């Protein structure tokens, strides 16, 4: 039996959705602190531009496109879940997970390339931030994809369809973090 507390909604918004937004609020300040530190350092170290020039903007742009597309399928999954079509929602969620895997695969290639050319996390301040920020983001991609797999498995059986929207909100957040990381780490040379 579920506690009565879990069935109430005094604000009119479902508790799960409120909680996801609060999780995002706590995540925003984690990335916010990291990126604000990076920006302050970058302004004080014009020479970091040399290190930034090594990053491959085109590969970064491709990964941005992959993540944006995976957010689109997350929205389509939500739309299907609203209609009560669990099977279709699950299908779209699996597409999003596929996007996450492509993103991580490309990321792995990039890091392999950079590390093999001697640009490691201890090389200098830029690379320390590069690997830490992108790594923390990749960790969120992995966590989101794993949770999404569970949501998709339930959705395929028509269960807990409201969770499709919740994981979608989280996924958009992961996407938006990357929208900040991409220009800061790849475009600003």
């Amino acid at each position, binding site marked *: *039996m579920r*506690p*009565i*507390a*879990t069935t*109430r*909604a*005094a*604000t009119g*918004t479902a*508790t799960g959705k*409120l*909680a996801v937004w*609060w*999780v995002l*609020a*706590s*995540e*925003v*300040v*984690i*990335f*916010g*602190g*990291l990126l*604000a*530190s990076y920006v*302050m*350092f970058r302004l004080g*170290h014009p020479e*970091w531009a040399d290190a930034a020039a090594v990053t491959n903007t085109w590969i970064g742009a491709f990964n941005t496109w992959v993540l944006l597309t995976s957010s689109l399928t997350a929205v389509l999954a939500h739309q299907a879940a609203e209609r009560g079509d669990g099977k279709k929602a699950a299908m779209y969620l699996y597409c999003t997970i596929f996007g996450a895997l492509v993103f991580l695969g490309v990321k792995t290639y990039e890091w392999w390339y950079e590390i093999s050319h001697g640009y490691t*996390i*201890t090389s*200098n*301040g*830029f690379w*320390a*931030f590069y690997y*830490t920020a992108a790594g*923390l983001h990749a960790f969120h991609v992995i966590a989101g994809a794993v949770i999404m797999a569970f949501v998709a498995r339930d959705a395929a059986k028509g269960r807990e369809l409201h969770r499709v929207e919740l994981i979608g909100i989280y996924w958009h957040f992961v996407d938006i973090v990357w929208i900040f990381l991409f220009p800061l780490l790849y475009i600003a040379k």
Partner: protein
Amino acid sequence: MVEPAVDLTHGHAHDDHADHGPQGWLKYLWSTDHKVIAMQYMFTGMFMALIGGFMAYVFRMQLAFPGMPVPGFGMVSPGEYNALVTNHGTIMIFWVAMPVLLAAFGNFLIPLMIGADDMVFPKINRLSFQVFFVSTIVILASLVVEGGGFAGAWTAYPPLSADSTYNLTPLGSTLWVIGVGLEFVAFLLGGINFITTLMNSRAPGMRAFDVPIVVWMIVVASILFMLSVGPLLAGAIMLIFDQTIGTGFYNPATGGDPILWQHLFWFFGHPEVYVVLLPAMGVVIEIITTFARKKLFAYRTVIFTIVATGVLSFFVWAHHQFIAGIDPRMANIFTITTLLISVPIAELCFIYIATLYGGSITLSTPMLWGLAFVAEFLIGGVTGIFLGAAGADIYFHDTYFVLAHFHYTFFPIAIIGTFAAFTYWFPKMFGKMMDERLGKWHFWLTIIPFNMIFIPLFVLGMGGQHRRIYNYTHFPELAIDIFQDMRIVATFALLIMLGAQFIFFYNCWKSWRSKERAPRNPWKANSLEWTTESPPPHGNWHPDRMPVVYRGPYEYNVPGREDDYWPQNEPK
């Protein structure tokens, strides 16, 4: 209130529910009941308080009688001394004040005071405690690993904290960061639960301004914590990387900056003061209204004041860094914001006084603790003005004056506030009344020694005694006899205070063993937790008779009523 004729709270539906799952100790460990989790946090916090108190005993003995073995510990080496003060601070703030005031009382009070049967995410609540428990093991382990516990002060400034060739504790310092980081994760999980529970699970009829202030305070504190801890979590990741894989985030040689850590730490560290202060202030409001039998003065102003405090608390952090080489123009700005934040806090003190004014005051043990909180915190607040002003702080920085100042804030919060809450809700938590006579002995034997410890330390600080010195006899120009006498007075006072805590434990044990059961509402208070049994059963109320709220929690001595109180759930 009208006592129900039959026992309404023991529903069979809920008893069946409670019996599912593991039994015995496992049942206790895996319980999702908010009251059980509250007790787990409470007892872990109290256990850690004993460890933190023992550390204080050892290093105060070393300061009073340098070079002599400390009974129960032995000789204190300089490294051990530093590890003891570091971990005393860390443990008292992160493993005592936070789990007891925020997590234990938050877990116990929020569902009971808003008329819910549990948190909205009971399993995440349990996970929060489990993560916290792991963090406790990590921080305790960090004390006994090879090289000893981290000894770079609880603020962990790099480069001392980042480089083991300086701090000589390669394992201890990394475990320290991991322990603190895990503890933050635990409170983030718990905080989200607190916030969403208050937002969504209030009893029917309970509007935002019918919520007891202590619940508001705990939830605002959770929001403050959540919004301030993120940058420090990022900073902790960077610190661990600096320690273990040799990045240079805080190392100027590789383009880093040690001041970055100070910014990230204090951007969290200062709101953290309010994270623990607000719940204590809320507790005191509940106690003062109950024992003055008077309506809270200016309920809405309190809410707006704490929100203002919360917002301002994000803009004061650099007052900890006045001598860290920050721009003097920036120091001016932070002086102004720091002085500004004393306005809402002073306002709360005036609200206490206005509430007491003309009340019919009972000096019970919880009320004594509550009043002591106001009086002692006031001293902490006023001495904070000296340190918030950059000019005075440059002289006082890192002296015993700073130490005495923040003990005059944290001791009222973490110890006085906790004892106030504990003695006030003890009947509800354990179903027994505490002994008032023992309670008052314990109160006076804690409060008087507390002042005897820290007033001499103010004087030491004004005399320029630096706070991080292991043995003053090594520094002839600092080793002044009268100052050494003051250190001895402070140490004796500490021994008396620590000894007095046995009265408290004896009182708990004696009350727990007593046959006499506490009534539902021993203090004749209004809020919802007093309408159920003591202690409340699983589910708090019978599922068919969950409380409905008709008014705010502070309707005492309403004209035209026979009773001097008016429970929130009593229909007109």
